[in-house]
């Protein structure tokens, strides 16, 4: 594609222009108050930051910041408690749904969500995930699936695709050694305690908008005490996959989405 660079008009007063731009009425985009000003620890190009923003925006738009308690996991998002401008608890690896249960049961009027990666939720925390879901805990799980352990340096995750390379499956994931990628959202969706299960992604602007709508829906179902809601969000891990951000999003679309198809898996039936 040809890039067109407009000629700069040298007569424009840059300072005056700057002052004009930052006027309140001219601001077209602001960081949500649902996030703090702390710099994110995520790699440039990673989807975590986008999902953080979406959650922050949903909390701001629903005007529920004072009513939300977030549970951070262990993994890349271990520092989530420094990024959300919310009261936050940091759980042990995989235990977020149990911690969230303790919070929700004693603070039933609050919105409680966990933010977990695939290793946290679908490997070490499988038991906590399934049982929180089966009890129909009125919590929301935001599940970031990037098919890899990012924080510890790119090891194989339960969601790593067959033949996908990682530092602990350097020749690719082999079915007869490592088993299959685990679709845990599909697994727990049939449980009667789960009201809403959906898989979204943040690799294109259109998908980002859909993911945000899903997060909002999940919070609304939580308010209606319908049971556990899980929003799985497919995200890239450009560092772990050893790709550029653009390549990784393309790779995700071409490879990950076949195993992890996007869309609602379960929505509440009753009115």
């Amino acid at each position, binding site marked *: 594609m040809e890039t067109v660079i407009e000629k700069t008009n040298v007569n424009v007063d840059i300072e005056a222009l700057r002052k004009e731009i930052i006027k309140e009425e001219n601001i077209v985009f602001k960081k949500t108050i649902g996030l703090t000003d702390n710099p994110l620890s995520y790699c440039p190009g990673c989807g975590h930051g986008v999902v953080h923003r979406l959650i922050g925006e949903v909390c701001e738009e629903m005007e529920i910041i004072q009513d939300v308690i977030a549970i951070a996991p262990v993994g890349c998002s271990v520092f989530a408690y420094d990024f959300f401008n919310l009261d936050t*608890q*940091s759980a*042990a690896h995989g235990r977020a749904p*149990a*911690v969230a249960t*303790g*919070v929700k049961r*004693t*603070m039933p009027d609050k919105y409680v969500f966990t933010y977990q990666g695939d290793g946290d939720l679908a490997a070490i925390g499988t038991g906590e995930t399934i*049982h929180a879901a089966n009890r129909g805990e009125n919590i929301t799980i935001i599940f970031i699936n990037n098919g890899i352990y990012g924080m510890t340096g790119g090891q194989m995750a339960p969601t790593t695709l067959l033949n996908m390379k990682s530092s602990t499956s350097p020749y690719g994931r082999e079915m007869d050694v490592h088993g299959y990628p685990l679709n845990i959202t599909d697994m727990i969706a049939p449980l009667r305690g789960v009201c809403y299960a959906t898989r979204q992604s943040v690799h294109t602007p259109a998908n980002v908008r859909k993911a945000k709508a899903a997060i909002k829906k999940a919070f609304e179902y939580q308010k209606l005490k319908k049971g556990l809601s899980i929003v799985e969000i497919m995200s890239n891990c450009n560092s772990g996959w050893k790709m550029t951000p653009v390549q990784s999003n393309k790779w995700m679309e071409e490879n990950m989405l076949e195993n992890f198809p996007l869309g609602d898996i379960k929505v509440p039936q009753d009115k």
Partner: protein
Amino acid sequence: MKGNEAIAEAAIRCGCDAYFGYPITPQSEILEYLALEDPYNKRSGMVVLQAESEIAAINMVYGAAGCGKKAMTSSSSPGISLKQEGLSYIAAGELPCLVVNVSRGGPGLGSIQPGQADYFQSVKGGGHGDYRLIVLAPNTVQEQYDFVDLGFELAFKYRNPVLILSDGAIGQMMEKVVLTPQKDRSVTLPSWATTGKTPDRERNRIFTLNIETDVQENHNRKLQAKYKVVEENEIRYQEFKTDDAEYIIVAYGISSRICMKTIQLAREKGIKLGMFRPITLWPFPKQKLFELSKNVKGIFAVEHSCGQMVEDVELAVKNNTPVKFYGRSGGVIMTPQEVLLFIESEMNK
């Protein structure tokens, strides 16, 4: 009332907000009693929930405690092992909570009969990292009851997990208990708790991670300073016929009950035997024991283990007098007579 039931009744009456448990012998009556009483609907509004594992239960406690609630769990030895990860996090996050261990014979699945082999785990750590639990050891059903309220009081005073180290005998025995009036559950929550970030304050965070090493060391120093205050202020013990004693038994929990009889039998034979009972196992009442040990001919550490508390006794006594150990394990309960036989044989050496 059974020792385990006393724990459950005390939890309701002291205004506990939540109990999370998992069945394991010999303490399942705690969860059963709470389920039957149904305090959430019928009494104080206390949450009672059977978790899918001991690991989940302690992490539910973490969540509730992080909201400033009075939260507790109970288990027995193998289950307490599973809770060690959570306890380390709770201690690191400086959350108040109460954990009850109605201990049994170990290691492994061990036996379901009473044991005291979890002493090291209780007072020396158990989980990873430099942390301490405040450990209370009841020897009557009344103390089982009383230590629940006391445990929560200490937990909130120091923002630290408190462990009641009981045993299968105290948990299963029946004794009379004086009950206390129902306390209201607290409506005001601590300022540090995660209760939802209101615009008038900064967000509250419960976390245990400090990537910067000096930040972590400073946090550890802060914890150690707190533990020092606990050591200076919270030591509890009981003396029994130590005034004229020439020999002293050191025992806690069920062992101390058995040794009461041993002392009676010894005194009938003219042996001046007394007992020193640590009530707080951590902090261990080492100074008082050190003082006592100056004036006696020998000290006997008597435990239902292969020799754990005896190490703290030896450290406290500092060679003032010989320290001998007598123990039974695996769920075998010693008789007062066999303890006396051991003491007599040691005296005659």
